[in-house]
């Protein structure tokens, strides 16, 4: 079991890190709250990496951790999910889960060319977004960095093709670890901001990071982050190897990422004190993304219940 990055993976991660640092500063995420069209300048660069969606999960997750770190707006994650389902890397796309209460919304539907609709019995129909435009309604959430939509699918007459059940299961697992990778990146951003703040902010004539109460909080936050990071990388490796524990590993990664994000965003906000509660401080851009991410592709509790089923109900 080798967690070390290949030279290519190192390069990919460095490239992603520099790209989002340059093209997706907090100011862009902030502007995106008022003017969603500003994602376009970032997308010009991110769109070059769409083929990652159909490549190894380990590479994709390394990249997604960086888009999550920057709370990058735009259809990169949605297209990655779409591409790996359909194999189509010529178009931007997103996925819509029909009649699925755990996945009620469609990511980034106004920014993609195609929507792959998935029925509960794992059949798929892909449509031009334009053809269902009047069925899409923007849904506002606390997270301004993503755009989600409600799709009215009633009486939608489409030609659904059943998917190979094994391939669909593999794709589902991959989606879970993909979202977990982005969430972990966002959690890492909040952690980094909180650690830096604890070193700078002085009270009682010393940095608050010298107080044991703050140190222990940050130690526990960093443990949660390390766990989520390792769980995501492990789960991505199980996807690439089609390993026997792939499904439970991907559920675990999603749950670990959700738990890490929740702990880090709460304690990170606490460490920032009053300034972190203000609109002008950038912290809330990432708190919003991390909070909303937990509900993307299944809540932490839902994934834990899937893990329980695999532990208890499978012989």
């Amino acid at each position, binding site marked *: *079991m*080798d*967690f*070390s*990055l*290949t030279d290519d*993976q190192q390069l990919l991660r460095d490239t992603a890190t520099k790209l989002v640092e340059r093209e997706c500063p907090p100011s862009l995420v902030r502007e995106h709250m008022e003017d969603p069209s500003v994602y376009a300048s970032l997308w010009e660069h991110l769109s070059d990496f769409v083929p990652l969606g159909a490549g190894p999960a*380990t590479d994709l997750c390394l990249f997604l951790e960086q888009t999550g770190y920057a709370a990058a707006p735009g259809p990169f994650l949605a297209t990655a999910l779409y591409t790996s389902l359909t194999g189509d890397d010529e178009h931007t796309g997103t996925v819509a889960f029909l009649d699925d209460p755990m996945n009620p919304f469609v990511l980034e539907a106004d920014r993609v060319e195609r929507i792959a609709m998935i029925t509960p019995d794992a059949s798929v129909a892909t449509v031009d977004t334009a053809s269902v435009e009047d069925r899409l309604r923007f849904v506002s959430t606390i997270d301004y960095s993503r755009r989600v939509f409600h799709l009215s699918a009633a009486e939608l007459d489409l030609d659904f093709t059943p998917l190979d059940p094994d391939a669909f299961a593999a794709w589902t697992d991959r989606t879970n670890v993909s979202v977990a990778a982005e969430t972990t990146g966002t959690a890492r951003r909040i952690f980094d901001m909180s*650690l830096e703040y*604890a*070193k700078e902010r002085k009270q009682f004539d*010393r*940095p608050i*990071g*010298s*107080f*044991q109460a*703050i*140190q*222990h909080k*940050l*130690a*526990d936050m*960093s*443990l949660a982050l*390390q*766990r*989520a*990071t*390792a*769980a995501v*990388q*492990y789960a*991505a*490796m*199980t996807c*690439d*190897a089609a*390993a026997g524990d792939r499904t*439970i*590993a991907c*559920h*675990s*990664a999603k*749950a*670990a990422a959700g*738990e890490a994000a929740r702990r880090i965003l709460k304690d990170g906000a606490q460490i920032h004190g009053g300034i972190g509660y203000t609109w002008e401080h950038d912290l809330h851009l990432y708190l919003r993304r991390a909070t909303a991410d937990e509900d993307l592709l299944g809540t932490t*509790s839902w994934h*834990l*219940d899937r*893990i*329980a089923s695999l*532990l*208890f109900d499978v012989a």
Partner: protein
Amino acid sequence: MQLAWGPEDEAFRADLIAFLDEHTPPEVLGGFDFSGDLGDDVELVPQWSRDWQATLFDHGWMIPGYPPELGGRNCTPVQTLIYLETLSSRRIPRSGHFPGYAIVAPSLLEFGNDEQRAMAPSAIRGDTIWCIGMSEPNAGSDLAGLQTRAELFDDHFVVNGQKVWTSYVTIAQKCFCYVRTDPTLPKHKGISLLIIDVDTPGIDIRPLRHINGQAGFAEVFFTDVIVPRENLVGELNGGWAITQGSLAHERAGLWVESVGRLEQTVQGLVELAQKLGRADDPIIRRKIAQFHELASSLRAMGYKGFSSFAQGSSAPEHSYMKMATSEAGKAAYELGMEIVGPLAAVTDDTFADSGRWSHGFFMSFANTIAGGSSEIQRNIIAQRILGLPRS
């Protein structure tokens, strides 16, 4: 990043499994209970366990990364990891007493003179049983505050003072003992390390019973104990560097075993819930799932840290493992008691499962204290890994 090991490593695993299949004593296979042994007067290190350690040594399977004369076969770090995970998954302990092979031998090899290095093989083979004299009544987490005094007179030291929580001292021949040799220096700088024969006149051992009633560790009193000067390990007043080293030896290899034990405890929770008809309880199910997620992410962290280590980089992941697995273990036993319900605290053995989990719960208290408490671990993470200023 990839899951599979290389063919040479798989061949190594096959060799190990063939050896274990042939040589593992039956007592090992039946004897390990993840909730701890309930017996009152179990022998601390039974004869079969001593024989097993010697067999491992003689076949080069005691510390496989070491050369044959030290009980190994010069295997790679990856193979060492395969070795540890194979033993852990089969619940096979290497030894009934860890200080000698895990702490004393590596420290002697690194810091000792020729004569002291020559003591390492018998420490690893278990022919000599060692204990470690670190903690004192007033030096627990603040280990550098230790006060046991050793005065140097020409060719010998005279030792006076007291150690406490000294595991294995009741059966040990030798003690790896940290003493204060210069009380005028700052506390980290006046400490030396002595090898003290446990049967030296002036040593008084008083066993202490554990919280579960078993005898395990002891208090050790030193009154005018004469120790030859050549028993000094490393430099005079240079002992602190060795304490740091020995604790590192203790922690680096422990995660595989501690994560393995946590996973076995989680599996025990699943079986317990099934047996007691709680397998459909959504709260119990979700809590157990959380432990599965915790254990599997810690295992992934351990491997990830190992990959850094094998490439010569630092592995911050491993600094978290002791705290994380010990805290998780304690919480897992709590969940076991919750599943057992009203019988959890009952020790009358006419009731199935009674007492077993509460007993394990008590046992688990040791793990968040010994070898550096969870609070000290958090201080270390905050200051050494996260770079926060000392409080």
